């Protein structure tokens, strides 16, 4: 079908509104000039500068570790929660459990961050790597549970029954039939948790301590001293990695729909 002129115009404006700022950041990351707003020719010096910027590299490393650890934790807990919700249609407090599991999806980040900070202070825990990781797990678990739950909802129970009928114990039926069938959804959930953790600034700011600064926190800190092309370069790296992960998630979730 041919698109009307109106639709083409709305599409172009919509896309431009969403992606033009990001595109500008990416273009200026290749700027040879030190001035952020003046184009001085093509250069990759800021990317080389990134590698030499030790605080920034340390922060990247912290972010990756936090994202990896929290994504793994969230995947395990979120998958288990989704399984419990789907398998046992009736248990005391099921409705409340389902509600409480999905509330963090809509809770303002600043609330999550503040409440976790108060908790860690009350427990008198030193804030650092582990508190950020726990905080990230707390909000990304909901996303994993949501994705896995959606997959389980359209998984025909007769597959697992067929496995049981063919002599598989409940555990074996789960490991050999259910788990392989929901694995793409679990992987998608895990990657989503990873990206959410990598992106997060607000919750990490509340729950981090000295010595554990994540990449978004470091970038934000540097920007307050002035935007340098180096920040553009770091942002570009972050955007490109997150985009790649999102593409993989889309591919995984589209694939499991066909099964």
């Amino acid at each position, binding site marked *: 079908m041919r698109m009307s002129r109106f639709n083409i115009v709305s599409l172009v404006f919509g896309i431009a509104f969403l992606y033009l700022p990001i595109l500008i950041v990416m273009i200026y990351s290749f700027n040879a000039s030190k001035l952020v707003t003046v184009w001085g020719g093509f250069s990759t010096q800021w990317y080389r500068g990134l590698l030499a910027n030790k605080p920034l590299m340390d922060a990247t490393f912290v972010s990756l570790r936090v994202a990896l650890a929290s994504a793994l934790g969230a995947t395990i807990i979120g998958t288990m929660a989704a399984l419990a919700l789907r398998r046992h249609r009736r248990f005391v407090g099921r409705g409340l459990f389902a509600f409480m599991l999905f509330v963090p999806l809509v809770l303002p980040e600043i609330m999550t961050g503040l409440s976790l900070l108060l908790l860690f202070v009350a427990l008198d825990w030193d804030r650092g790597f582990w508190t950020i990781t726990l905080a990230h797990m707390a909000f990304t678990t909901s996303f994993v549970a949501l994705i896995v739950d959606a997959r389980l909802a359209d998984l025909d129970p*007769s597959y697992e029954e067929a496995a*049981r*009928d*063919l*002599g*598989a*114990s409940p555990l074996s*039926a789960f490991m050999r039939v259910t788990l392989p*069938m929901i694995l793409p959804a679990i992987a998608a959930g895990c990657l989503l948790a990873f990206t959410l953790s990598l992106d997060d600034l607000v919750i990490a700011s509340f729950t981090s301590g000295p010595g554990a600064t994540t990449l978004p926190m470091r970038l934000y800190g540097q920007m307050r001293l002035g935007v340098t092309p180096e920040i553009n370069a770091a942002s570009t790296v972050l955007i490109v990695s997150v985009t790649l992960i999102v593409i993989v998630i889309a591919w995984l979730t589209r694939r499991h729909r*066909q099964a």
Partner: protein
Amino acid sequence: MGTQGVTGRPPLVSIEHVSQSFGSVRAVEDVSLTICEGEFFALLGPSGSGKTSLMRMIAGFGEPDRGRILLAGEDVTRVPPHKRPVNMMFQNYALFPHLNVFENVAFGLREEGVPKPERSARVDEALRLVQMQSYAARRTQALSGGQKQRVALARAIVKRPKLLLLDEPLAALDRRLREETQEELKHLQKSLGIAFLVVTHDQDEAMMMADRIAVMSAGRVLQIGTPADLYERPVSRAVARFIGDANVIEPEIRAHLDGRALVAVDGTPFEIATGSVRDFAIGVRPEKIRVLEPYVSVPGSVTLDASVEQRLYRGDVTELRVRTAHHVWRAAILNASRRTGFMPEPGERIRIAFAPDDAMVLPE
């Protein structure tokens, strides 16, 4: 009601007074029946009649609220599904999409711990039995409906169960393939010697394949018998209507005498054998009704004046809807006899006749 099996064969499954409810819905109510070794048994009934719930209880999915299920003399009522010597072919086949054809069929043998060389020999044999041996390496998504059905069948028989459960095995196939598959299933069952229990809502399917059929309705078994028993001697109005077509008529019962009754339909009296039954309807199959020109009478038959309301050509037969004084009847005329026989037009005055012996007594 007969719970005893076919004579000469030992019982394999005994279902004893089994009931099951889901919340306030009573799915199965006090069902007792016996399936014999090597028997082809069908549970026949409309959806919601409890036939699937009963089959699932035999497989181990869902426990009865009351009653017992015995398998080869052993009480399996509370045995989990993976420990029962029973396999099931699911209605949607439930082939594992992440495994290929060979791996699907080998699944049960692997769970059982059958060593690899024997496993692959048995999988090959099962695939050969269903003529799918050349598809072993295929992905299951790439198969047609009929091929999936064969793979599901191979997967269910490869463990050599004592009883194979088939849940609407032909429902997903188109008509031509269904008829072919009916014959193949019957043939496979005889050559394997495994007892088959088929759940179906299709009476033709049950009649063609099964040695015995249990007709179910609203969670209860109405009648158990061979296809001929059910067709020729239904015990109730419901069975007479469900198995084949029947004109079910409430006659005027005038007198009982020595196991016979004097009844009248539209004022025409006749005698039929009723045994000890006192209250009953009669059922007459459409093909047992003779369609006659007016004023013709047949000695020894019940003859009624009628008019033709509708005529339906159905290929092998022509079906007439005719009205007598108080009843509407269906009569079937074999089209093979058309050239010689009488074929009235709608609106025409005719007579219908049936032998009193062809009137089935329906007590329930």
